[in-house]
């Protein structure tokens, strides 16, 4: 687990759905609302907050730096203000924000959110994929929502890995049964599809990251074979 607690700003349907889905991932999940009336809600433990830069009250109960913040205020201007306010105070805080449209999503990113989910575009993408690519959509959906044994993982090349210093195109991946390598992420965080011209001539370096698809046991086997480990870095996120 990367962070200890989740802070959800805003109390609405989005917030309750987020609570439902992430409560098992964190030691504590706290909801903060701008509306004092929400405190009376019996189903959820809701605390009041305002948009001033005073975070001391929240700091008393949780360590904000070790938390992940979900900004779900429905008023987009207030949500942007909240993100700016959090980012100005906590440089390393992971902030996930919800936006109605891509236009406001860009503003939230500019305000300092690590990740923004644009509601309209996301919903439209899902509807379009359901209609146009039902098979691939179903398989990717199952992969993503743990309904399938298939997984996507990032494997970081360690100093001891025996594929280090080899040209990517010279490696016969069929030796690694049950694994498909999709892309390689360089040190500078730019990633290349495995069959792109640039990637084919790439010499695998230490700290390069391979993105692979496979069953859990095969991925573990692959990790062992190449002498590397799974790797996640939140700072690599980009929309």
């Amino acid at each position, binding site marked *: 687990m990367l962070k200890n607690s989740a802070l959800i700003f805003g109390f609405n349907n989005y917030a309750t759905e987020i609570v439902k889905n992430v409560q098992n991932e964190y030691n504590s999940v706290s909801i903060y609302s701008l509306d004092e009336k929400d405190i009376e809600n019996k189903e959820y433990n809701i605390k009041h907050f305002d948009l001033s830069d005073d975070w001391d009250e929240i700091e008393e109960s949780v360590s904000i730096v070790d938390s992940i913040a979900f900004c779900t205020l429905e008023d987009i201007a207030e949500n942007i203000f909240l993100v700016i306010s959090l980012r100005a105070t906590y440089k390393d805080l992971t902030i996930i924000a919800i936006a109605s449209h891509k236009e406001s999503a860009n503003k939230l990113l500019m305000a300092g959110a690590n990740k923004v989910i644009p509601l*309209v575009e996301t919903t439209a993408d899902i509807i379009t994929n359901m209609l146009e690519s039902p098979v691939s959509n179903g398989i990717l959906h199952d992969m993503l929502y743990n309904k399938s044994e298939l997984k996507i993982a990032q494997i970081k090349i360690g100093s001891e890995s025996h594929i280090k210093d080899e040209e990517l195109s010279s490696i016969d991946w069929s030796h690694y049964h049950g694994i498909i390598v999709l892309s390689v992420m360089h040190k500078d965080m730019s990633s290349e*599809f495995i069959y*792109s011209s640039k990637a084919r001539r790439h010499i695998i370096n230490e700290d390069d990251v391979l993105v692979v698809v496979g069953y859990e046991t095969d991925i573990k086997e692959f990790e062992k074979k190449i002498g590397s480990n799974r790797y996640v870095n939140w700072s690599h996120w980009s929309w």
Partner: protein
Amino acid sequence: MLKRLILDASYALDTSKSYQARKKFFKNLLENNKYKYKKYVDIFMMTLIFASVAVLIREVKHPIHDYLFYFNSYVISIIFFIEYILRFWIHSSMSKIIINQAEHDSLLSRDFNLSKALKKILKLKASYIFSITAIIDLLAVMPFFHELRLLRLFILFRVFKLFRYANSFQTLASVLATKKFEFFTLGIFASIVIFVSSVLIYVMEANNPNSPIDTLFEAVYWSIVTISTVGYGDIVPTSYEGRIVALIVITAGIAVLAFTTSLVVSAFTEKLDEIKEVKTVEDIIKLKHFYLVCGYESVAKDVVRKLVKRGNAIIILDEDPLRVEEATKDGFKALNYDPGKLESYKKLHINMQTQIRAVLCLRESDVANVYTALTIRSLNKNLQILSLLMEESNRKKLQFAGINTLIYPQELIGLITKELVGQPVAFEIIHELRSEESNVHIRELAVTQRIIDSFSTVGELGNKKFRVILLGVYKKDTGRFYFNPLDNTFIENGDFLLVIGNRVFIKEFETYIHTKVKDA
């Protein structure tokens, strides 16, 4: 006895499938603008008309070949006469009128009144015979009697037949017909001005030896030329009084012209939306497949844009004229029809089962979406319906309305955030593969018999040569997905190949597997 015979014949015709089918076929061919073969008949008839006029013009100063003469006088006339008779036949059903009369009389325990039925038939058929279009049709046949020179000029009546075949002429006529009263008033006004000015100018100028106006006909000719603002100048008033009359007529002429122009413009402006709607409906009828989107709000806008980008036809129905206007401005086919009303679908004249790929209820209101879904379900039980769900508490209601797939945005956000924090890598990659902007893309390629004829196993596909990753094979029959299949895995008709790669390379690979023919 005669009555019995006529009644039996009427029942025989009315119940004869082949007779009714033939009648329906000709009715569609001649009168149904939505019938796909009608336009060919229209084009054929228009070609005959132009050929006929061309022959008439040619023979004014040049001798024409006999075959052209006979073609023009006999062949075209006979074709037009056959058309006239067919239109007469399909205009109304004599057998139906007789049967209705017989059943009506029998219900009232009276003897069958044949003369009453015949009167009704005569009245109906006469209404056709004396309609302007039928008179033009008949006059167009007259050149058949070419011995009578005057009758040959009736060829020109064939030009009027163009009104029948060109939809735009019909539109023009229907637009101008909406201003019948205004045109009538204008006509009365213009006639009075012409009459008064003609008499006045005649009185003022007829006795003047220097004036070119000598007869009442010349006075009327001058008045019409002047009031129409044409003013040839061949006849001009010379007396002082006559010029005063001219000033009045010129002023009245400007008013008449301005009034006429404004009438035509206003008639078109008022009917413009209706004309556009008719055109849109005609375009929709011609579509083979399309997605029917009900409502044009934020999610709908994005879905429509994405589906159109992928080459799909979309029809938008919305009861709000402002949203329809917005959709039209965005370049989509949209109609200001309420998707919740049966009448809207009747007006569309579409085959829901074959033409609609799926119905998307994308109003941001559960009430509106339930209403639309129920309307569509009442028309078709099998259509795929997808809908937005705005409130979780309404889920059961929407399911009960017959919606197949529900999209609840709040739930999606919950699931997405879970993946964001739990499997960020998978989330990123999958999002990237699904994204329209990304170069690397996932595609599902349907396996057809043609592909099977060339490739029987996965290994033979040679996807690596095209720099394409074969993620797996989806077997539609069993619903199972075979990830990273071995080279000797058989592929079957109906399977789907899930491939990942650059869009261009996937396209090349797809073309290759579809076109490769196995060596003998």
